[in-house]
């Protein structure tokens, strides 16, 4: 649920990076945080355990002037990917305006990708939202690893909803694909908000 403040000329949207444990969701946000040059950029909030695994969420707020006349505030969140943290995943997913599904390209993780994608759909449905109703894209991360599955196979596994969505290959540790993904999802979310306003 985006928030549009006509009074303050501000639009605030929430984008959630979803995916199985260790697929690189936090790494995406860390790279964005390191590379964005903004006087308004605040610290990234991470609630992580000792092993650097996300326990609750990571949070990174960004501001842009993507919408003429309005300040756009993007709030980027990650969810904890590990299976046992579904309760917290649901909480973070509340009110998401867009989702980036970060899949792990390694062969051994394909089942985890599919399970997490199914979990995303189920958690949204519990909130009364169909995945097809919100903008989402797929990021095939860790393309640099030797045992990465072919992108066509990952498309077959994950991009098989009623409507195909854009997918991107990425190596988040090196920043490859990270900003392409961010640019695309933000444009999709803004386009949907503008479309909703015109209705």
């Amino acid at each position, binding site marked *: *649920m985006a928030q549009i*403040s006509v009074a303050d000329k501000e639009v605030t949207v929430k984008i959630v990076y979803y995916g199985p444990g260790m697929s690189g969701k936090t790494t995406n946000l860390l790279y964005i945080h390191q590379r964005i040059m903004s006087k308004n950029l605040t610290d990234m909030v991470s609630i992580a355990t000792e092993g650097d695994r996300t326990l*609750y969420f990571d949070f990174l707020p960004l501001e842009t002037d993507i919408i003429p006349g309005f300040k756009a505030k993007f709030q980027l969140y990650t969810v904890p990917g590990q299976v046992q943290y579904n309760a917290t995943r649901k909480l973070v997913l509340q009110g998401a305006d867009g989702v980036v599904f970060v899949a792990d390209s390694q062969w051994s993780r394909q089942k985890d990708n599919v399970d997490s994608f199914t979990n995303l759909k189920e958690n949204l449905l519990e909130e009364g939202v169909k995945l097809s109703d919100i903008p989402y894209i797929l990021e095939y991360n860790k393309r640099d690893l030797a045992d990465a599955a072919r992108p066509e196979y990952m498309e077959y596994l994950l991009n098989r909803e009623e409507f195909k969505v854009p997918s991107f290959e990425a190596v988040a540790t090196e920043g490859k694909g990270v900003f392409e993904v961010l640019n695309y999802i933000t444009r999709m979310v803004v386009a949907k908000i503008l479309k909703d306003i015109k209705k």
Partner: protein
Amino acid sequence: MNLVILESDKIKLESVLTGFIEESGARLAMLVGKNGMILSRRGDFAGVDVQSLAALTAGSFASTQALASVVGEKEFTGVFHQGKRINIYIALVADFGILVAVFDVATTIAMIRLTARETSKRLEPIIADLIARSK
């Protein structure tokens, strides 16, 4: 559904929050949605990262609600974080979100809790109007 805040909403919300600060003695107050977005804020925010404060308090309160269901309670209407100098009180505002109050030794938790309860009630119809109009 997008939530649209007009100038008139902003004035009403800020007026209620200003009233809360004056009555309770809190340093700052903010109204935050379940999704962690700030609808309105008043008070002294110098040196406070407001967006992180909103995201973390929304997350903290959401966990608390999950805790309530674990122990068989419908909901917890308030949460108190106690510090040496600074404290935070979070109060539920209908189904919509939370009222966050940051306060110090200038006031007491009893005063904050009492005023927050009344303030939540004052905020509810304003938010209900806002949501109804946004649909």
